[in-house]
């Protein structure tokens, strides 16, 4: 399993790790019942803070994506979720593809599209913080 957070990005590392675990589940690289690396080995392998890995795992458990079994480690939960996520993702991808096509046909460049998406996600992230 390959996780690769970009530590110099403006996005907190624990959020990146959470996304990478979810992505691995969505692509089938991780399946229900699979064990995630332990906190310490993963922190050492990625050379990142162990508290950051622990935080990502805690949040993933809170979202029901993984299960922390005391002393045994972290495991991917329920199989139903994988398929649902995959379908959802496929549907999302076609929406994104259509939107990108439309923007390009109006002369918006790739770099500009990327910026638009990032700005929108940033806006959402900030709003999300206020709710939580």
């Amino acid at each position: 399993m390959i996780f690769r957070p970009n530590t110099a990005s403006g996005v907190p590392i624990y959020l990146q790790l959470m996304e990478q675990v979810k992505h691995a589940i969505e692509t089938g690289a991780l399946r229900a019942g699979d064990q995630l690396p332990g906190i310490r080995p993963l922190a050492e392998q990625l050379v990142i803070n162990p508290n950051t890995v622990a935080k990502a795992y805690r949040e993933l458990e809170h979202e029901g994506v993984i299960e922390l079994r005391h002393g045994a480690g972290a495991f991917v939960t329920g199989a139903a979720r994988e398929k649902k996520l995959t379908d959802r993702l496929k549907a999302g991808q076609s929406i994104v593809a259509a939107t990108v096509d439309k923007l390009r046909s109006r002369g918006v460049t790739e770099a500009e599209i990327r910026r638009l998406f990032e700005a929108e996600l940033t806006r959402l992230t900030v709003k999300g913080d206020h709710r939580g």
Partner: protein
Amino acid sequence: MADGFAIETADLRKAYDGVEALRGLTLAVPAGSICGFLGRTGAGKTTTIKILLGMARPTAGRATVLGLPVDSSASSVAIRRRTGFVGDDKGLYDAMTVRGMVRHTASFYPRWNRELEEKYLRKFELGAERGIKTLSRGMRTKLAMLLALCRGADLLVLDEPTTGLDPAATEDVLQALVGHAAEHGTTVFFSSHQLADVEQIADHVVIIDRGRTAVAGSLDDMKQNYRRIQLVFDGDAPAYTFQSRGVERVTRAGRVMTVLSSAGIDGVLGEARQLYPASTDSTPVTLKDIFLDTVAVED
């Protein structure tokens, strides 16, 4: 260390010959965290570390390390027994071999960990019989790290541990730190000019500027809450003072106003609406941006 703070200072001041190196420094390092200590050269980082380890006395203010006051000689000894320190000169004796230096240091620490010693001698490829005089800069740092890690310290204080190291040696040192912190719950407090190192392994950050704390807190919180907001106007950007919480810096250049916010974008954007900007945009902010925007540019 369980809960609480491994290091706490309140309004710490230090003057050398009337020149103030620290001008009311307040900081708190949570136990079990890896805390990056940042600031420009001359901001007061080394002075702070010296005070924490009892090598200098504060002119005023209060500081505790592992719950012990730094300015009584009895507790200062206890602090140093429970703290591993790697300073600029590394405290190594050139006449000794690696093994000799290790044995010499081990004799002072009853909690010395022989297993760790063997592990790091192998991992750092130090070569036990080599003379210290023949070690490269990276090797000297690794040996000093080994001596600090094996004494069973509750706190590691490191003054620019990766300065002058090549990327491979830097990664070895950082990996030893995160591995050690994960296994032993040791608090790590390290000063650095390498923002990338701090972003990689720190969960807390303290940025000081001219003897005072400029920014301090959890790195995740900073990355989630700091945003750079750009407002573009049809004419010149108006002179305007924001009332919103968390507005750290506002710059104007022609039609563009840039706002650095430490409290998200909603407050600033809500207020900016009444200025009728032609467009608004916001981007996340890296530690480097925060550093450059919060420390004084002029000396």
